[in-house]
Structures are given as C-alpha cells and as structure tokens.
C-alpha cells in the first residue's frame, strides 16, 4: 500500500459565532496518498475550504479546531508549535485560493511577492532568488517573465494572476498542494489552461494535490479519488471512476444528476432545499431532509462510513437497499 501524505481523523472545526456554534467541519476523516489527486467536493458551506484551512491551521476567527488529528507524513500538525507551522505553510503545504485578484498583495511587485516567500523558507542569495522567481514564472507560462516581474498585480489579467498565485504557492516546491476552487473566477478557456498547468506541475514536482471544487467536471478530469462532503461530514469516498459509475450515497447521485451534459438530453435535477443550518444540523443523517430515500432510522441515527467496495466508503444507512443511478450506466 502506498503511504499517506495526509491523514485526517475525526477533524472538528467549529465557529463560535454570536448566533451559536457553527459546526462547519464535524468529524471528517480521509487520507491522501503520496502523489495522488484527491477531489474534495460539496456544495458551498459543506466544509471543503474549512478543512483545507484547518490542515494549515489558519482557520479565521471565531473558528477553532476542536478535535481530531491531522497527520502530515506521520506527524500530527495540530500538535506543532506556531513556529513549526509557519515553516510548513508555504514550504511544505501550500494553498491556492479562489480569487486571484485578491490573493495577491496589490502594493508589491510580482517579483517581491515571490521572492518574499522563497526567502522566508530557503536560505538563498538575492540573485539566486531572482533567478528562481523568473524560472518558476516561466514554468507557469507567464510570457516575458524577466520583464513582467517588475509589474504589479493590477497589470495582469485574471488568468495571469492565477498563474502568478500558483507560482507563488509552488515557489518552495511544496509536497502537498490544496487548490481551493482555483478556476471558479476564470473564463472557461482559461480554466482549462490553468487545470492543465496544475496537472503538469503536479507531475513535475511529484506533489500530492487536493482539489477543492463543486464542479463535477473538474473532479472527473483532475482527480483519481473523491471525498464527497455534505454539511461538514463525509458522505462518500471513492475512486473517481467508481463514484461516477456507481454512486452509493443519495447525495452523490443528486450531485451527479445536477451536472449538465451535452451528450444526453435530460432535464437537470435540482437537489431540493438548501444546505442545512450548521448551528443546529438535522438529527441523524444530515442529508435526510433532502433525501428521496430517507427512512425513520435516517432521522435518528448518524450513519458511519462503511466499506462497500475496494476503496469505496459510504455513510448511508440505506446503501444496501437502494439502487442509485450513476453517470455511466454501462461500464466503459
């Protein structure tokens, strides 16, 4: 078995707001193997981003990690000191944020933003840093990197800014990269370019990648395994192909049915209702109020992850009794 880079167990991150305790991440467990591309999928507010921020321990106030284990290469990150974490952030684990136009500091040139990161983590001279900056910017496909490094973020287009943000995240060659909806704010054509770039760079550096998105298309193209999150807990973990072909959780089925397809004439199915209030989540299975297959048990008992196939886990009481429709009804 391939060793895991990241092993999250029972992670709980709550936000202590004035309205009450928001259980944004409530007992999430999954692991990430070395060199793997893992998808983290779910609706807005399902806890995808908070999970990533919890791993880096940069959950914004009033959020706090309450419980759980986050093992990175066998060491629990939640037990590290703030100093040790600072060295890990950006150096070993990096994250790319959703909005490239606000994730770069507007008052610094591209060069100083990248060299800042490099010099924070590595002991290199000024000239070397500059060379490295140019090298990495060329690698992410920034044309005329030598001259453009003196420019400021507002002089770049959205796609170029995201490339710079990617370059900054990769400047210290991290072993684990979180990409938090890196293409949500980009045009479709640029999206494809950025995703290709991420794929190439992942191979080049041998990184493990966690792709956070709500776009099932990106999941299908970019990942080998998927974790489906709903309202702060894991519904299903499966290999990407299995997830699309044989979803076991009603929520996964509903997610797949909500993806528009050009090759099939079908009406898009909408998942009724909204993601539940995380201050007082529904009892039992959190999905039961929106689930077509819900029974009395679902209302009372919280389902646990059960192994239903090779590397396929689902948290559903009814998985034995229901037949769900996948994307590909007959195997390829």
């Amino acid at each position, binding site marked *: 078995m391939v060793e895991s880079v990241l092993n999250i167990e029972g992670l709980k991150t709550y936000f202590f707001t004035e309205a009450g305790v928001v259980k944004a991440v409530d007992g999430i467990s999954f692991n990430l193997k070395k060199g793997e591309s893992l998808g983290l999928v779910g609706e807005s507010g399902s806890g995808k981003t908070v999970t990533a921020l919890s791993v880096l321990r940069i959950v914004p106030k009033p959020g706090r990690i309450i419980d759980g284990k986050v093992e990175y290469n066998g060491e629990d990150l939640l037990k590290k000191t703030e100093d040790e974490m600072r060295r890990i952030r*950006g150096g070993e684990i990096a994250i790319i944020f959703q909005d490239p136009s*606000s994730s*770069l*500091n*507007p*008052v610094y040139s591209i060069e100083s933003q990248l060299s800042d990161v490099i010099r924070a983590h590595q002991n290199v001279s000024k000239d070397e840093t500059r060379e490295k900056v140019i090298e990495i910017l060329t690698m992410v496909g920034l044309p005329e990197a030598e001259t453009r490094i003196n420019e400021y973020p507002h002089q770049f287009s959205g796609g170029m800014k995201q490339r710079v943000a990617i370059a900054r995240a990769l400047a210290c060659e991290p072993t684990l990269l979180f990409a938090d909806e890196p293409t949500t704010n980009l045009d479709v054509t640029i999206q494809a370019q950025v995703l290709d770039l991420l794929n190439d760079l992942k191979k080049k550096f041998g990184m493990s990648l966690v792709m956070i998105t709500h776009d099932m298309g990106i999941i299908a193209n970019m990942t080998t395994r998927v974790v489906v999150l709903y309202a702060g807990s894991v519904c299903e973990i499966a290999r990407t192909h299995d997830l699309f072909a044989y979803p076991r959780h009603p929520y996964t089925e509903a997610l797949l049915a909500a993806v528009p397809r050009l090759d099939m004439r079908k009406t898009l199915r909408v998942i009724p209702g909204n993601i539940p209030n995380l201050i007082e989540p529904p009892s039992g299975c959190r999905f039961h109020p929106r689930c077509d297959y819900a029974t009395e048990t679902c209302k009372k008992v919280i389902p646990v992850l059960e192994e239903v196939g090779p590397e396929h886990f689902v948290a559903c009481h009814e998985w034995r009794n229901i037949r769900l429709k996948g994307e590909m009804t007959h195997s390829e």
Partner: protein
Amino acid sequence: MRQAPSWKYPFGTSGIGTDVFSEVIHGTKYALYVGILVTAITMGISILIGAIAGFYGGWVDTILMRITEVFLVFPALLLILVFVRIFSLTAAEPFWIIPLINIQIPAGLTIVILILGVFNWASNARMIRGEFLRVRELEFTEAEKALGASNLRIIFRHILPNILSSIIVVSSLTIAYAILLEAAVSFLGFGDPNTITWGQILQENFSDARVVWWAEFFPGLAILFTVFGFNLLGDGLSDALNPRLRE
C-alpha cells in the same frame, strides 16, 4: 517704534519695535518642529493602537476602542491647556535635544509638543483600525498566512503598506492641525513664552491688533499657507503612492 510694512520691514514692526518678518521666519522653524513631531507621536500611537485593535479584533479591539473613545469625548483643548500649565513649570533644562537628529528644542515647546501628541491620536487610531479591518478581510492576508507569514509580518509588511496612502493623507492633515493647535494654545497664553512661535506672535500683538494689524495679519497668513500646503502635499503624495496611478 511700530512701523507699517515697508521695504525695510516687509511685515512691519510690532508695538515694541520687533521686526515681524524676522519673527515669522523664526517661527517657521518651530511650526515645522511642532507639526512634524506632534504628528510623529500621534501617528506612532495611533498606528500601534489601530493596528492591534483592527487586526486582532475581539476583546482586544473592544478594550482599545473604549480607551480611544475616552480620549475622543474629552475636550482635548481644555486638557491640553491644563497639562501644559502643569508641566511647563517643571521644565528644568532650557533646551531638550532630540536624540539621533540632534535638534534643539526649547523645553517649554517640547512639553507643548508632547502633550499635543499624546492627546490627538484618538481619531487617527479609529481611522487606522477601520483600514486594518478592511484590508484584513482581503484574501491576500489569508494567502500570506498560508505561505508562512507571521502576524507581525502581515501587519507591518502586508497590511500597513496597503493603507499607507491613507496614513500619509492623515499625517499631513495632522501636521496642519498640530500647527493650528499650537498656535491656538500659544494665542491663549499657554504656550512657551520664551519661544517665538506664530501663535506667540499673535498673542503678543493681540492687544494692539487694531493699530498694528500687520503683526497679526502676516503670522496668520503664514499659518494659513503652511496648513494649506500640508493639505496639498498629502493629496499629492497619496496619488503618487497609489500603484494604480503609477505607470
């Protein structure tokens, strides 16, 4: 004795025969000392308090802002007058020398400067706190944190430069306001009687103002131009420092 403005005495002479032009020129130095030093003290305190309150938020913010409000609601001029009167009696040395830059400042004026600085930071601190709150919410502070920057680094290297243009504008307004305030303190007779500041000239010639109008008019004009000039400077600098307007 007193003479109207002429080629020899461009600003005229005062009731006791002093040359108003020389006095105004001499006062310029003190006006700049007052403006710059008061602003340095004020901005030092307000950046520290505003940054901590805005960045950390929560109970730290609550406590610091309540303290700030205490300073805001007190009638500053009154307090300044009281404290200047109390402390100016205690000045032992005739001059105080500022370390590093080796500038000599009359002791009485130093006390006025210190007190003006200590009592004027509140509204600036509130403004800087607001700016920190705004910039702290931008994604790049989170991104910097994710790249391994410490809180101090985020505050001083990433957030502060982003609000520099507001700080500069406010600083130049504070310089202007400090000069005005010192003039007011001196005019009311609470200034350093051994230092010829513009306010001091106004105060000394006030009783003869109807006759020697020039001894009031020209120092007043000097204050007006200086205050106006610092306001313009602030505007210009804020444009020059904005990377969006830079080619």
